[in-house]
């Protein structure tokens, strides 16, 4: 561990000054700023909502569209339907006449209304955005309701008064409100997902490139493999925190700048769920889970001789991580199911499942301690194993070896 700091500093500087990494970060910061400004951008183009929308039943504006034809049973019906079809509707004698008029493009659509105030809408072609039949149906429903209210000896005002009654309720939540916490938990899970994939692949490619370029033997004869692996993993971890810290900061600034344009529910969902216990759980499992995956990526990066073999070598850990993501998605729906509980304890999936569960429900302390302990043990074990595999990798070129054999050989006592 004598040269841990030397390796750490060199690798961190290399990563932070890499052009591709800088460009990616700038793009992500722009996306974070623009993404959090979306409500403001939408508000710029949206017309302001009509103030004072009535809560009571009122007759909708009649469709006075000359492009619509109607077939009604008689003149009385036409008068009754005036709020829906207008004072001077274009009336046809029969359904056939209406169909002919539509086919001749005399009108665009037609409604055939029967005695029970049910209707048939007839189009020649119906566009994706057509809504006139829906509006007509609403107007007809209103008329039908009004007729029924009157037939029971009530007035429309009486009905509105009854309709507006509601019970006053108060909700007390002893644990957590899943509805409020879901959005933030999901967003933070996506952050972990991106960080692990980005920096995991970075670590594995750094090591594979060292091997490909035959730099490894110089390194392992200059210092201990433990300093090399731990320095590289720590550098990737700090680079991730710094670079993604900037992205999160940009998102936070964007959110604060545009907060006034966000719907109330979104503000509540973001700020309402940020309890210190949740943040601690999230930081613990995300950080150590991230480090665990970095060690896995580092170990697998040591097993290849050529850069082009890296993709297939890291497929296993990619699969493991995607499995973890799927488990977290399941936990988001059923956070207390047996599957979610088990997945939140296994270190490979705990990285995403435990923070997700902790965001949605109150996770028992026993499960948190068990999962946390297993996570720390797993990190220590895979750190040791990745050092051994890295050392093994420095001596093996060319031949593709099965992972089980690699582990067996890496743990041989003659490999220091």
């Amino acid at each position, binding site marked *: 561990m004598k040269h841990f700091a030397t390796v750490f500093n060199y690798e961190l500087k290399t990563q932070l000054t890499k052009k591709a990494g800088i460009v990616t970060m700038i793009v992500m910061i722009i996306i974070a700023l623009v993404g959090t400004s979306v409500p403001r951008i939408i508000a710029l183009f949206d017309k302001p909502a009509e103030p004072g929308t009535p809560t009571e039943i009122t007759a909708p504006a009649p469709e006075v569209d000359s492009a619509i034809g109607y077939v009604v049973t008689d003149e009385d019906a036409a008068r009754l339907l005036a709020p829906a079809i207008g004072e001077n509707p274009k009336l046809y004698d029969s359904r056939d006449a209406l169909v002919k008029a539509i086919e001749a493009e005399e009108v665009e659509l037609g409604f055939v209304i029967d005695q029970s105030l049910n209707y048939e809408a007839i189009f020649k072609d119906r566009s994706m955005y057509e809504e006139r039949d829906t509006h007509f149906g609403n107007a007809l429903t209103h008329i039908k309701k009004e007729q029924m209210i009157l037939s029971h000896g009530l007035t429309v005002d009486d009905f509105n008064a009854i309709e507006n009654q509601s019970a006053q309720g108060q909700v007390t939540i002893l644990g957590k409100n899943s509805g409020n916490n879901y959005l933030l938990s999901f967003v933070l899970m996506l952050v972990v997902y991106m960080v692990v994939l980005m920096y995991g692949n970075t670590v594995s490619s750094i090591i594979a490139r060292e091997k490909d370029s035959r730099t490894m*033997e110089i390194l392992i*004869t200059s210092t201990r493999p433990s300093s090399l692996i731990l320095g590289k993993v720590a550098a990737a971890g700090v680079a991730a925190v710094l670079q993604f810290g900037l992205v999160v900061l940009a998102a936070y600034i964007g959110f604060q700048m545009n907060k006034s344009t966000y719907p109330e529910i979104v503000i509540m969902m973001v700020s309402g769920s940020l309890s210190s216990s949740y943040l601690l759980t999230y930081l613990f499992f995300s950080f150590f889970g991230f480090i665990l995956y970095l060690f896995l990526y580092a170990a697998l990066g040591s097993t290849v001789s050529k850069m082009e073999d890296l993709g297939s070598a890291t497929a296993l850990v990619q699969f493991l991580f995607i499995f973890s993501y799927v488990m977290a998605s399941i936990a988001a729906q059923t956070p207390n199911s047996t599957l979610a509980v088990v997945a939140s304890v296994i270190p490979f999936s705990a990285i995403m499942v435990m923070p997700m569960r902790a965001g949605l429900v109150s996770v028992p302390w026993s499960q948190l301690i068990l999962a946390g302990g297993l996570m720390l043990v797993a990190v220590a074990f895979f750190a040791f194993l990745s050092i051994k595999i890295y050392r093994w990798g*420095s001596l093996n070129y060319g031949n593709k070896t099965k992972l089980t054999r690699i582990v067996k050989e890496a743990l041989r006592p003659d490999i220091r």
Partner: protein
Amino acid sequence: MKLEVKDIKKSFGEKEILHGVSFEVVSGRAMGFLGRNGAGKSTTIRCLMDVFRQDSGQFLLDGQPFRPWEMRIGYLPEERGMYQKNDVLGQLTYFAMLRGANRADAARTAHYWIDYFGLGDFKKKKLETLSKGNQQKIQIAQSFLNEPDILILDEPFSGLDPVNAQVFKDTIAQFVKEGKLVIFSSHQMSYVEEVCDDVTLIHEGNILLTGDLKQIKQAEGRDKLLITSMNGELGALQDKLTAAFPTLVITQDRGSLIVDTQGKAMQAELLSWFAQDGTALRRFGLYEPSLADIFIQKVGETA
């Protein structure tokens, strides 16, 4: 300093690669470690550098167990490479720091060796932008960082053009002059002959000979004479000698006769015979075999 390699054995799987390798190296004398490809040179060096752990035997430095990570060692592996995408000065400074230098000293030694090889203009360039020859110089420079007390160089002349090889030979000579302990492996005999004071010959994991190069040459050429006639007719001369001295073992080698006299008395007798016979000779002297001759002979004896 005296480095002792004592009875090193190493197997890979069921196959033993090194069968009890032993030799010694002392400071101020360059030791050439010779052998054919696959003879066990790199495996021995890797065991010495603790890349592999030997199955048995030990490495001792002045009688104490040799711990390479505690020493100032310049090491040039057979499989050499460096960070292609990183700048030259940065990575040499990094390697120097990994070997124990502080930042200032690491930068100083990196600057020195880059300038020494005439690559001062490339300090901030990525290694991949340098020509192959210049990349080799940088790779060799990394083994000289930090003023090492011990230099272990595995096939250092491999791929070097004659000009760079000369620069490298001069540098090794300087290290030897400064009293450093130098080991380098090679299968290029001429370079070893020019640079080394001592040689160790390994073949199929066994040491065939080890010691002072001059003494080895003298021993191998003992009681042998090198005779070249003025007219270059070797066959006739050989026939005459065989007729006059039937017990002599005479062989032809690159335009000369090599005569095994089996004693100094015979050498004087031969000289008198040539004086009486009147054969015009271009050369009559003690035979000293080249390292390549010794190598071929020794390896041939094991076949």
